[in-house]
């Protein structure tokens, strides 16, 4: 156990010894170790100096004046007599052209032909303007205006026209009502006409015929009874036979008269129908005449025509009526004729009876038989008469119905006409009412509107005429311009033709050929240079762009050093400071005139500006640092310490007044002998220890 304690103490002792040795070594070499951990800095003292601002740039030498060789037409090059870099004299031939017509001449000729064609076309297209449509419109508007004015003037008569139209409507309505009433009456008559009981005369004739038939039948029967016996005298028989013959003759006359009377009656009916129609037409004409007279708008000619129409129709109706009347009176005899015929028949019958009796009296049974036969014949006659009477009844009835129907048709036609007249009168009334609706104010308004339209038309016509005049003038101007164009083109052609004779292109000035851009066989292009000549007698120029800040450092007439030429007589001088069109507001173009032994195209390196400004404190650019607190420099300050001299980097805020490529002039809290840190092998912060190179 004691051995173990010694072992432990021994271990601790060894550890302490090693620790102390290490500490000693570290202390011994502490300075060195610390030095190596510090950043190494290079420094120099601030000093007064000059800040020189020189502007440098390179530029290519160009001739002051360059002449370009042009041809104004397209020609073929025959030969080129020079090459790049050749020196030429004024008047020396450079190009020889082929002796042919140029493309420009052909083109110019074509252009001239086109211009002439256009001019001719323009001449033909000028036409005189026409205003027929406008005039027609104005004429119509004038007519409308007159119409409107006459309408306005008629307004006062319209009220009367309305009243007369109303009266005409009333009168037409009355006519219609009357005709309707007549129609009803005729309808009633028609139904009455169908009733047999109305035909008294005919019925009487039928009754008479029937009684005669009955009597004849009775006699026949009596005779038949007396067939067996009877006696008649010859004289009586002869007398009776004569009576009978005369009666039969008289009967024949009566029957003939009766037939005539029947025919007359038939004619009378048709005349009556004609009369009724004529009467209806006359009534309608009267109504029309009344309406015209009451309307107040009808002309006198119309009224006269209507009056004449009415009078003629009225006269015709009267004539028809008188004719009818005369025929009708003869028809009235029919009844008495019928009575006479009946009476005659009765008489004949009586005579016959007497004759028969007489014959019977004188005769034998054969005469009685003859009587009987004649009575039988009489019976047949009576039957025939009865039949005739019945037929007559039917005929009269039919005729009466036919008459009434005719009257009904006529009345219907009249009613239709009257209705038409009523409708016309109503239309006229409506028209009169609508016309009456137009007041004086409205009529005046209409007139104003038409007048305005007319005025607008006049104005439009005037404007159109003005515009057409202007067009014509413009067309004339255009034609004048075209004529001028044609003349110009003719001059151009003359010009070109005059130049065609030139086949050699000569140099205008002496100089050096800068470039030839065409070869033999090429066609020239008008406006495109075929070559350029540097006119050396005008001198050389070099231009290069500079910034605004650089331009501020330079003045005109400043000497420019040519840095890439030695042992030369070349000299350069600033002759102009111009605005840079490629960089407006941000740059300038410096123009330098170069004289001496230089060539066009030579690259020269210029340095301009010799002015230097003296400053009290100038430091290298690498000494100037910057952070968010501004620009500063780090200076080396020495401090004594127990371990020796220590160097500390201290910050001094400065302001840079001017600088060039290598140095900057600074101002700040500086005394003029500060040791400024320019570079270091590690980043250095203010307040850090640094070491200087050994």
């Amino acid at each position, binding site marked *: 156990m004691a051995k173990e304690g010694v072992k432990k103490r021994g271990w601790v002792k060894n550890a302490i010894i090693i620790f102390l040795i290490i500490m000693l070594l570290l202390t011994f070499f502490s300075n060195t170790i610390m030095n190596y951990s510090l950043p190494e800095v290079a420094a120099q003292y601030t000093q007064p100096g000059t800040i020189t*601002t*020189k*502007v*440098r*740039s*390179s530029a290519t030498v160009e001739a002051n004046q360059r002449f370009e060789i042009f041809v104004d037409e397209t020609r073929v090059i025959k030969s080129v007599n020079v090459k790049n870099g050749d020196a030429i004299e004024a008047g020396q031939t450079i190009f020889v052209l082929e002796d042919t017509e140029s493309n420009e001449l052909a083109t110019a000729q074509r252009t001239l032909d086109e211009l002439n064609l256009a001019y001719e076309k323009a001449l033909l297209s000028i036409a005189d303007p026409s205003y027929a449509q406008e005039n027609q419109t104005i004429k119509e508007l004038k007519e409308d205006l007159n119409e409107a004015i006459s309408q306005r003037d008629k307004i006062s008569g319209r009220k009367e026209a309305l009243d007369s139209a109303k009266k005409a409507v009333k009168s037409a309505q009355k006519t219609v009502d009357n005709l309707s009433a007549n129609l009803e009456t005729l309808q009633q008559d028609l139904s009455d006409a169908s009733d047999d009981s109305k035909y008294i005369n005919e019925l009487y004739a039928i009754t008479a015929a029937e009684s005669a038939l009955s009597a004849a039948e009775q006699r026949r029967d009596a005779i038949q009874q007396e067939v067996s016996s009877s006696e008649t005298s010859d004289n009586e028989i002869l007398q009776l036979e004569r009576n009978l013959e005369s009666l039969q003759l008289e009967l024949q006359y009566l029957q003939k008269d009766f037939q005539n009377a029947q025919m007359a009656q038939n004619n009378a009916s048709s005349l009556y129908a004609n009369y009724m129609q004529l009467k209806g037409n006359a009534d309608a004409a009267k109504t029309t005449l009344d309406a015209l007279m009451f309307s107040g708008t009808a002309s006198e000619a119309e009224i006269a025509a209507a009056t004449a129409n009415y009078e003629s129709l009225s006269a015709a109706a009267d004539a028809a009526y008188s004719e009818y009347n005369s025929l009708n009176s003869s028809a009235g005899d029919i009844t008495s004729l019928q009575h006479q015929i009946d009476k005659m028949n009765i008489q004949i019958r009586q005579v016959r009876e007497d004759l028969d009796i007489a014959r019977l009296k004188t005769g034998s049974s054969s005469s009685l038989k003859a009587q009987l036969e004649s009575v039988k014949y009489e019976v047949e006659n009576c039957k025939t008469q009865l039949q005739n009477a019945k037929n007559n009844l039917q005929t009269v009835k039919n005729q009466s119905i036919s008459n009434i129907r005719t009257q009904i048709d006529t009345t219907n036609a009249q009613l239709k006409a009257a209705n038409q007249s009523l409708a016309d009168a109503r239309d006229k009334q409506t028209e009169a009412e609508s016309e009456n609706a137009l007041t004086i104010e409205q009529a005046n308004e209409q007139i104003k509107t038409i007048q305005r339209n007319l005025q607008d038309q006049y104005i439009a016509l005037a404007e159109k005429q003005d515009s057409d005049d202007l067009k014509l003038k413009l067309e004339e101007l255009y034609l004048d311009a075209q004529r001028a164009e044609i003349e110009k083109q003719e001059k151009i052609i003359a010009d070109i033709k005059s130049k065609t004779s030139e086949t050699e292109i000569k140099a205008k000035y002496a100089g050096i050929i800068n470039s030839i851009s065409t070869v033999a066989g090429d066609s020239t292009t008008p406006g495109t240079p075929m070559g350029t000549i540097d006119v050396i007698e005008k001198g050389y120029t070099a231009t290069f*762009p500079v*910034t605004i*800040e*650089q331009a501020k*450092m330079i003045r005109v007439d400043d000497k420019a050093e040519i840095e*890439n030429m030695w042992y030369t007589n070349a000299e350069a001088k600033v002759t102009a400071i111009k605005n840079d069109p490629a960089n407006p507001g941000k*740059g300038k173009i410096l123009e330098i005139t170069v004289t001496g032994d230089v060539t066009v195209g030579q*690259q020269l*390196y210029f340095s301009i500006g010799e002015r230097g400004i003296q400053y009290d404190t100038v430091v*290298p*650019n*690498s000494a100037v640092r*910057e*952070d*968010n*607190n*501004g*620009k500063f420099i780090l200076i080396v300050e020495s401090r004594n310490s127990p371990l020796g001299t220590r160097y500390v980097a201290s910050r001094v805020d400065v302001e840079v007044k001017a*600088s*060039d*490529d*290598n140095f900057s002039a600074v101002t700040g809290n500086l005394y003029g002998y500060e040791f400024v840190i320019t*570079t270091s*092998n590690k*980043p250095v*912060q203010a307040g850090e220890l640094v070491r200087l190179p050994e």
Partner: protein
Amino acid sequence: MEERRIFRRGTYIYLALSLLFLIAAACLYGVILFKGSSLQSQTGAERWSQDSRFSQISVFLSSDAVLREDSLLDINKGLERKLKEASALPSEGTGRAYVLSYSSETQLNISSNKADVQTNVVITGGDFFKFHPMKLLSGYYFTESDLNYDRIVIDDNLAWQLYGSYDVDGMKVYIAEKPFIIAAVVKSDYNIVSKEIYGDKPRAYISFDAMQIILESETYVTCFEAILPEPINGFGIGAVKEIISSDEKLIEYVQNTGRYSFITLLRKLGNMSTLSARKTNVIPPYWENDARILDIRLAIILFFSLMSTLIPLSFIVFLLISVFRRRKIYFNDIKRIASEKFERISQNRKGK
């Protein structure tokens, strides 16, 4: 006397392993912190200000987005307006509130009297070199405020090929027969993650003015960078997204500040499978590709760092369980002691 051990031997080994893994995790995390803060193209905001909050934002565009140098004036105005609205503009007399830079890439033939070299050329504008400080072997950068814009910064590879030396600032080179003055020579593979990304070809830097005025060639901006005040989280990138916009396939936005923070790397670890997928038509410049490679590397390191903390964490849990199991005081004892104390106190009060 027997030795008294608090824990078994295995526990001590477990403890030692946990300490080891904890140290490893801390070292790995330290590597993340160190690497993340050492890539200078991502730490512009930290360099610009140590006492105020700033953030560095990058916008990468496809050339199809057609962002011309002329448009940058409008972008500048837009940013000023945004900062003014947020009251983030500084008072007069102090420094600038924000810094801008824009660039593009192309290939040009750069020649001297001795050689003619095909070169990757970065066309720069604004304060490009503040965002991408390089190790200067000679000379100094050109700036936008220089009077002449015929200055060029070349890397050591190109300087060697053209002149056979690094001390060539002030000498001439030619691009399309136009002379340019060498302003500085910089180290080629300085502060880069992957030399393959930088490439074997030499690299040079010229200004947009030189490209447009001297070489008379229009170039579109493909990279826009800004250091903006960050009064609240996400202000800077939000403002930039609003002012510079294009089709989503033609533009990418990156917040450089805090790119390698714990949370950001953890998110990237979660999206590891899609990190390398190309979702747009943008071809980022070499420094952004460099930063993306570092994204992946640091995410992997974070993964191992987190894995390394598992064992120490499990040991702590185990320790707590053991201590709890071996406790001598139980809950009833605590209750009893507490109630005795309470009785004593109440008796004392009654006595008073």
